[in-house]
């Protein structure tokens, strides 16, 4: 039982990661791929934040009467990673807009066929 309480968080997060990962590699529509990428990354962020959690801890901002703080380092790392994620999303979506204009479709198998024709 304690085994489950120790790890349930990580297991669900792994499931979420894999759901996102599946969307990325299976989706044919590019927008959906980008959504999947975001879900994948957000779930990885959850794993990091779980690492930093201390039971009965509090947010790492100095306050009176609080002695246990959660670990601020994963928070910092993930702040950076979130920014990196949105930057990637923006470039990816801009590429999709251009692909739509050039090929008239955002379905991967359709423009693959068109690529082969050239």
């Amino acid at each position: 039982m304690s085994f489950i309480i120790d790890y349930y968080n990580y297991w669900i997060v792994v499931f979420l990661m894999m759901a996102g990962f599946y969307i990325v590699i299976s989706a044919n529509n590019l927008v959906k791929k980008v959504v999947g990428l975001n879900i994948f990354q957000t779930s990885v962020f959850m794993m990091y934040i779980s690492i930093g959690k201390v039971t009965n801890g509090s947010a790492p901002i100095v306050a009176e009467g609080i002695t246990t703080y959660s670990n601020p380092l994963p928070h910092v790392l993930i702040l950076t990673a979130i920014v990196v994620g949105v930057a990637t999303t923006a470039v990816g979506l801009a590429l999709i807009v251009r692909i739509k204009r050039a090929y008239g479709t955002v379905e991967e198998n359709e423009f693959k066929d068109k690529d082969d024709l050239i």
Partner: protein
Amino acid sequence: MFEQHLLVLPIVLPLIAAPICILLMKSHLAWVFATIISGLSFFISVDLLFATLEQGVLNYAVGGWESPWGIELRIDAASAIVLSVVTGISTLVLVYAKESIAKEIDSSRHTLFYSAHLLCLTGLSGILITGDAFNLFVFLEISSLSTYTLVSLASDKRCLTAAFRYLVMGTIGATFILIGVGMMYMKTGTLNMLDLANRIAEYDGNRTINTGLAFILVGVSIKLALFPLHMWLPPAYTHAPSAVSAFLASTATKVAVYVMIRFIFTIYGAEYVFFTMDMDIILMVLAIVAIFKCSFMATVQSNIKTVLAYSSVAQIGYMILGISLVSSTGLMAGLLHVFNHALMKGALFMAVGAVFYRIGSVDIKAFQGLGKQMPLTMAAFAIAGLSIIGVPLTAGFVSKWYLVTAAIEQQHWIVAFLVLIGSLLAVVYIGRILEAAYFKKPSELTEGKTIKEAPILMLIPMWILVIANIYFGIDTSLSVTAADTAAQWLTQSIPEPFVSIPSVVTEETIK
């Protein structure tokens, strides 16, 4: 007064220059500025290379916070070699880029090109210099993000799909690395590479550490296009602008190889990765398959840039093969090939770019009869091509020689044989192009037209690389010493009997 700060400059100089490039507005101003900054970084890198050869490791505490609390920059011979390659090639490519991108990229985007190029340089230098695992991820993303932009700048619409595929694969790779770093942090509580190495050594066969290693290796393998995760590379290199292909082919994957070396040898320790986890066998098999499969793919393509791209994947196979031999000679051969391959692939892609500049096509048909019409360009292509094959007196020969030596040292006779066979495939795909250029009549693409030699600004960097190919093929003292120092330094962690040169060590004694 900046001597102690030299370490941070190859990252900060291009980082500051990139936004200034945007503010400069004028294309040629941005060009001059970017080239000067890149050249400056190159001189600093060479200076650092000599410093590391003399003093071993240099480190620097960013923000004045000592490690592991702050971010530490560390450079040893291995990173200094790759750093010199990256900054050097970047400078040459920038010189080359002026004429090349004038033809291939819309003029309103020139400043953006230079800015993205400098950001990419920032990222690559950052990866090489940093001594912090998470910081490495951040710089990896700077370089990747600017790379996607650079690839998508070409006028051919297929560059867009290539860039998108690259983006998806690259982000998956980066996220895998992020997962791996997270798992290491979870067990050790630190992100500094040396500190990680010390603390990981305490765990033996821990499942979380093992998984972390696996995820990092897969993530880095995507970034370095190790077979079978290389599918993003051929389209990206084929459809990117010529200057970008030349830059990426000779730097981006090399830096990824460096990251793999860093994680295997410095952080996890060769003993753990190779003897506990048996990664050497997996890497060796993948490397050999990559050499054969992709060399073969290169022989059947008609687009010359695709040929070179597949050839790149095959050459990466040689580098990984060097790593997987688990000896200081093998690692040295791998590092040497990183250095030499950058010289040859840079020259080859520049030559192809020059052909595209004059003819507007990179199909093998466009090359027919070019030996007479563009003699200097084709001569450069021929010499660099011979170097890829591994003909004596070229740089390519030196690294293959050491690779074969290393394989024989470890009693891997078959591997040594396969390396030689692999070179024969290179003869086929380079030979095809040379045959077209020198022995065939001009095709309908070029027939009856007078084709001028490439502009001088494109020829100079191309020939500098070609001469470097010959120079480092004859006088190997600098490159071999550097690679050897780096390899000795990195393989310290391998137990003594396996590092030294004796050829009596067999597979059985290792186990």
